[in-house]
């Protein structure tokens, strides 16, 4: 079963245009900068925004097709959504918020509450909080309730819009595995957390400016992120050049050895963590070595992301410890290298 999105959603002054996007079963991460249309995409799939043109299919059935005059309303789509702004029902107790979808599907009150309790336990909301109104919960507790509420009716498609943003770190691991094991056929996971992408996503869709910039497995998208933002997000370097056999000449004149043969204009992509930094010219097998100027270092926990200028603009991820050892400072001239086997060629 697949969700097929091929159409346009129009807002005043802004448009999301998605051409032939197939979302297969499993977890699909949707990433992109703020305001690129991730939430809009989710809303259209859920039936909260209408297509202005095109066609949306869910599991083989047409859900929205303005030309044919078909529109399946949200409540008939079996698509649940965890909203970015939560939208819990303020007048209902926490347990009844979660039981809401079950009740609508016909469960009796006791049964629905029982099941809701099971879910609340799974998302880590203490039973002391169940009879309270959402307003009497902390932010993270509320977000957990929102996740439980969307899971409850066992939807076919589960759209989660930054579901872990204010969940604490231990809860995150717990909820991640919950989402990974979700019985929903499709989980559309809108996220700004690279860890979500790395640990959960079987597929990644990159949105940029209201259009799909890239799609595929995490590795494919890292290789070909489609836009600057995603490249940074995924830690990929994208270097344009011209291929001749197994070498590529970059615009800056640097000749790189690659493991694949190609010809003509190509992009050489390789992850930031594949780049090694050295004080002196590296010995050994790595032929792709060059002298670069160190532009900036971003410390990110135990990891340091080093931005290099020179013949090619490249990012390198090193451990914080080696950054300290190398005494990396902006302005420094340093050797960079990567192995030919780490490279993907995109034509």
């Amino acid at each position, binding site marked *: 079963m697949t969700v097929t999105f091929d159409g346009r959603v129009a807002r005043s002054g802004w448009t999301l245009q998605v051409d032939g996007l197939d979302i297969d079963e499993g977890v699909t991460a949707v990433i992109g900068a703020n305001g690129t249309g991730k939430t809009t995409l989710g809303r259209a799939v*859920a*039936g*909260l925004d209408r297509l202005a043109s095109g066609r949306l299919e869910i599991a083989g059935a047409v859900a929205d097709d303005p030309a044919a005059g078909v529109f399946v*309303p*949200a*409540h*008939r789509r*079996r*698509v*649940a*959504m965890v*909203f970015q*702004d939560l*939208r*819990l*029902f*303020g*007048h*209902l107790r926490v347990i009844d918020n979660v039981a*809401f*979808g079950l*009740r*609508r*599907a016909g469960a009796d009150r006791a049964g629905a509450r029982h099941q809701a309790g099971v879910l609340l336990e799974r998302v880590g909301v203490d039973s002391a909080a169940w009879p309270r109104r959402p307003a009497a919960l902390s932010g993270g507790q509320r977000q957990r309730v929102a996740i439980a*509420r*969307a899971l*409850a*009716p066992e939807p076919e498609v589960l759209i989660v819009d930054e579901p872990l943003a204010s969940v604490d770190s231990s809860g995150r691991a717990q909820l991640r595995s919950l989402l990974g094991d979700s019985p929903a056929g499709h989980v559309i996971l809108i996220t700004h957390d690279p860890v979500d992408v790395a640990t959960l996503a079987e597929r990644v869709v990159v949105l940029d400016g209201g259009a799909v910039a890239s799609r595929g497995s995490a590795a494919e998208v890292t290789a070909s992120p489609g836009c600057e933002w995603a490249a940074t997000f995924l830690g990929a370097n994208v270097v344009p050049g011209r291929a001749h056999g197994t070498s590529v000449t970059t615009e800056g004149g640097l000749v790189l050895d690659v493991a694949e043969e190609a010809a003509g204009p190509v992009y050489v992509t390789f992850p930031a963590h594949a780049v090694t930094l050295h004080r002196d010219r590296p010995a050994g097998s790595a032929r792709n070595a060059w002298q670069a100027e160190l532009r900036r270092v971003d410390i990110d926990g135990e990891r340091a992301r080093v931005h290099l200028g020179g013949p090619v603009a490249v990012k390198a991820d090193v451990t914080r410890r080696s950054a300290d050892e190398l005494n990396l400072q902006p302005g420094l001239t340093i050797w960079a290298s990567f192995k030919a086997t780490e490279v993907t060629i995109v034509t």
Partner: protein
Amino acid sequence: MSSPTRVRADPGTEPRPASRLPVPLTWVGFLALGLLLLPIVGLLQRAPWSALPSILGESEVLEALRVSLIVSLAATAACIVLGLPLAFVLARRRLRFPRIIRAVVMLPMVLPPVVAGTALLFALGRRGLVGQWLDSWFGVSLPFTTAGSVVAAAFVALPFFVVTVEAALRQAGDELDEAAATLGAGAWATLAHVTLPTIRPALAAGTALAWARALGEFGATLTFAGNFPGRTRTLPLETYLALERNPEAAVAISLVLMAVALAVLVTLRDRWMPR
């Protein structure tokens, strides 16, 4: 970090600090309450307390009370049944002339009650626009019946309900409705389980306003439905007639009216609207 304010040292029962009101506002609020109460105190003060039992024991008064309750409650029910949909249409549908339609809804409020009653006769009376057909096709004639009183009371009370609820719907927005839809709630379920509970304060307010208006209604009912004991004579009519003969009795009957209103509002309204 200037001029700390001295406050009562009992934080447990203090309202949350941010919701504290400007002090003069509170004064004016209590002043307003006092002004509102003043005429009622005046009424209480002039009430013929000693004659009260005998006046209120009159079977006519009890009968008028019965009619009043039936008519006002039926009219309130009609206001809810008709007014809720109308409020939703006004708040949520794209209408062609929204301003005008919204203003038109309020027109029954500005008509002097006697004129409102006359207008109802023009429309639903035996020779009225629609009334003549009701009469000749179904043999239904509203004037001089309890049903007629209900129609008149509902006509004057409806705008209060509609306007209050419509405002609340606009304030509430549709975010929660969307959430309900993604959880499988159809239009009706969303209405019943999400939208209406969200605007509950306004629903209670609108219902109370409509009921109070219907209970106090007098001119339109009289003009449209007449005045017959046990059928169309409500407490306000009883009061009006008593004024002609024995003003003290009129004051006494008004007290009954107020007592009934107070009892109903205190027991019912806050049941729907817990703090």
